[in-house]
């Protein structure tokens, strides 16, 4: 086991050129080493949707992988070109459907930047609260499915039980649980409902013991540690070279979080920490996300206590017609850097929208992370990358 991980982490940037990433094995010591090519997916329980991974195996050892994506492609970016800015807003919810609020936040902020308007402070606070709640929900779903991939069935049900509390808040706020469409360009559509603050505070009290419960099941579990420690290691240099962001990057020891690095919304007003890992293995990524959930609670607590009064909608024209120009705005979605590149030709419809989805970029790291590991680790690594195929394929 050890030599595999060394092999992977010892790879410098030179290993990233294309000749090493394709499916041909570099050396072939014997005439026949019984290579087996199997399709993992698109219908496979552990590929989180419709990812298809072509695995080249020697026995159970992975010699190479190739991801085939596009099974969930809906042409979201192309659709944008035929919709007005407002009409496109709900579509972004359908990309990373487990973190729809973050998607909406990124899009709204990008268009606001293009329009040169700013959301009022109260709207920003509401946005932060909902986004952080959504981050927790996303991490919960990740934790449940990741644990299920590694064979622990039970955490899935616990996380879904607790995620329900967040979804209830979403539902009462905007009427939808999953694809919320919570924000509008220029602020928020809805004022918080009566009892919103109380419910959020209830959740703040309710959730920390639940995280302890998940950790009791997994963190110290010998099998969990054996399955995740030194599995899917990616060095900081490799991670940066591949453009990996989010918890995957932070677990490799790079302190890079857009909430701190380029504060957006109201994040500069809050006090929170960015957890980082050291080894860049699956266990570190797990720990980073667990700590992130607690940090999100901290942010929510500060936001809900300091939420200012005031309007929730900025001064946005009735017809949104941004000036000619282009803008790139990115936020820290639960899975990493979610960026929107919008080109405006001055009309009511964007000329081009390009989304930089974190899952898609992070998925590139799969090959370098699983080479030399076993089939079971591929499943663990796909889980730890926390990909959502709706976002990868768009």
């Amino acid at each position, binding site marked *: 086991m050890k030599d595999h991980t060394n092999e992977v982490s010892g790879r410098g940037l030179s290993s990233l050129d294309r000749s090493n990433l394709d499916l041909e094995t570099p050396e072939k010591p014997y005439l026949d080493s019984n290579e087996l090519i199997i399709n993992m997916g698109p219908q496979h*329980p552990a590929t989180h949707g419709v990812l298809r991974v072509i695995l080249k195996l020697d026995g*159970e050892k992975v010699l190479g992988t190739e991801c085939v994506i596009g099974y969930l492609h809906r042409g979201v970016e192309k659709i944008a070109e035929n919709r007005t800015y407002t009409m496109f807003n709900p579509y972004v919810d359908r990309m990373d459907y487990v973190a729809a609020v973050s998607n909406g936040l990124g899009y709204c902020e990008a268009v606001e930047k293009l329009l040169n308007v700013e959301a009022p402070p109260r709207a920003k606070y509401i946005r932060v609260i909902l986004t952080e709640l959504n981050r927790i929900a996303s991490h919960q779903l990740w934790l449940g499915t990741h644990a299920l*991939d590694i*064979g622990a*069935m*039970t955490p899935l049900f616990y996380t879904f*039980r607790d995620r329900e509390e967040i979804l209830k808040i979403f539902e009462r706020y905007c009427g939808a649980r999953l694809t919320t469409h919570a924000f509008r360009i220029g602020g928020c559509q809805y004022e918080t409902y009566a009892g919103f603050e109380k419910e959020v505070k209830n959740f703040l009290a309710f959730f920390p013991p639940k995280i302890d419960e998940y950790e009791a099941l997994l963190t110290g*579990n010998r*099998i969990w540690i054996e*399955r995740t420690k030194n599995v899917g290691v990616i060095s900081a240099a490799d991670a940066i070279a591949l453009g990996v962001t989010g918890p995957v990057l932070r677990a490799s020891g790079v302190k890079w979080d857009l909430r701190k690095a380029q504060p957006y919304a109201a994040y500069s007003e809050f006090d929170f920490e960015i957890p980082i890992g050291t080894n860049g293995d699956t266990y570190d990524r797990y720990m980073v996300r667990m700590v992130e959930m607690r940090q999100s609670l901290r942010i929510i607590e500060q936001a809900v206590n300091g939420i200012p009064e005031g309007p929730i909608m900025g001064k946005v024209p009735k017809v949104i017609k941004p000036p000619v120009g282009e803008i790139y705005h990115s936020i820290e979605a639960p899975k990493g850097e979610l960026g929107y590149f919008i080109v405006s030709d001055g009309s009511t419809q964007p000329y081009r929208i390009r989304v930089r989805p974190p899952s898609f970029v992070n998925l590139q790291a799969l090959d370098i992370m699983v080479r030399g590991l076993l089939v079971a680790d591929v499943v663990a690594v796909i889980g730890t990358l926390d990909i959502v195929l709706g976002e990868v394929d768009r």
Partner: protein
Amino acid sequence: MLNQFTSYLGSNLTPGTANNQLWALIYVLIIFAGVSVAVMAMNWLERKALAHFQIRLGPMRVGPHGLLQPFADALKLMLKEDIIPAEADQFVFWVAPLIGLLASFTVYTVIPFGPSQAVSDMNIGILFMLGVSSLGVLGIVVAGWASNSHYPLIGALRSSAQMVSYEVAMGLAVVSAILMTSFNETGTGTLSMIGIVQSQQQQGIWFIFKFFPLGLIAFAIFAIAMVAETNRAPFDMAEAESELTAGYHTEYSGLRWSLFMLAEYAAMIAVSAIAVTLWLGGWMRPFPNLLHAPAWDFLFSLFPGLTFLGLAAIALIGTARMPSHSFFRIQRIGLAVFAALLGIIALLLLVIAVAGRSADASLAARFNEGIGYVYWFVLKVAVFMYLFIWYRATWPRYRFDQLMKIGWKVMLPISLGVLMVTAIVGVLVK
């Protein structure tokens, strides 16, 4: 025929030893039916218990509290189309589930539910049991190969390597228990399953407590290896659904698939029965030597009846707690009937316990005795069954290389060491 039927009734030998083919057949049928029912019950219990571990309700629709779910499942599986892949090896594909099933059911011929409550008392009982249960792997390997598909093949390779590896540690743990049978006056041990329990009775100690902690360690080794042998979580490498979709039975469907499930559950019960026989005193009730007075005997003989009474009470409480909506009327009646059925069984058992309390050779007394043996044996096995479910609910899955590492580098040396130390201690104590 009638002569053969009646001549056995007074005997205290197993039908195999008494060479009574008729009763052997009756026992085989009873055991076959019993195991099938136990598998069905286990199926329901596993789904229910697992559901409650996971804050779900589990099956609730088919029958009150899903009690009829196993029957519905069985019916559905029987009616389901039986698909054989075009590229599969037809004959081998067809025969593979039967091999597994045959292996796991053949084992039951030597399992002693009581001193005479077994089909046969073989001289090589435990050896036969290990041998036949190791044949079960053939069914898995052959199924994976015959499917002519990659995931089943990987599952089959994993499974064969895993079961062959864990058999070694398992065998050594068994040997150390067999060694303990020889620490008596004559110095001769036994491989017979009945003999092993009887020698625990003679030595006045369950082997799990013998030479503490040696027996316990050997038992622990066996208890771990048996989970691996039956391909259950956390060692369910062969059918790891998140990795290999369903492992060796990916291509199977319908009745043939259900035969695999039947074989797996039957094998689980069988290995648990081995563990109970070797370390936990088999059919013996707690403290048979210490609390030997007839009053104690009577008290312990009440247990089966009281257990059923308790189950009946639970069912009754469930009936009372059902919502009083008209939708639930049939379910309510069903559960009430079920409770009444359990209550009648409980009453019957209590009546037998009272009628057979004298230790004479009357039929009631023998019946009472037999029920006691089977009850304690089944109770001990049931604990293991619950453990199997518990493991599955709690633990993630090991990776294949870690599994092999544990098998060869941890369990094997420990079991070898325990075997040696047991031998040395046995000689020294003597």
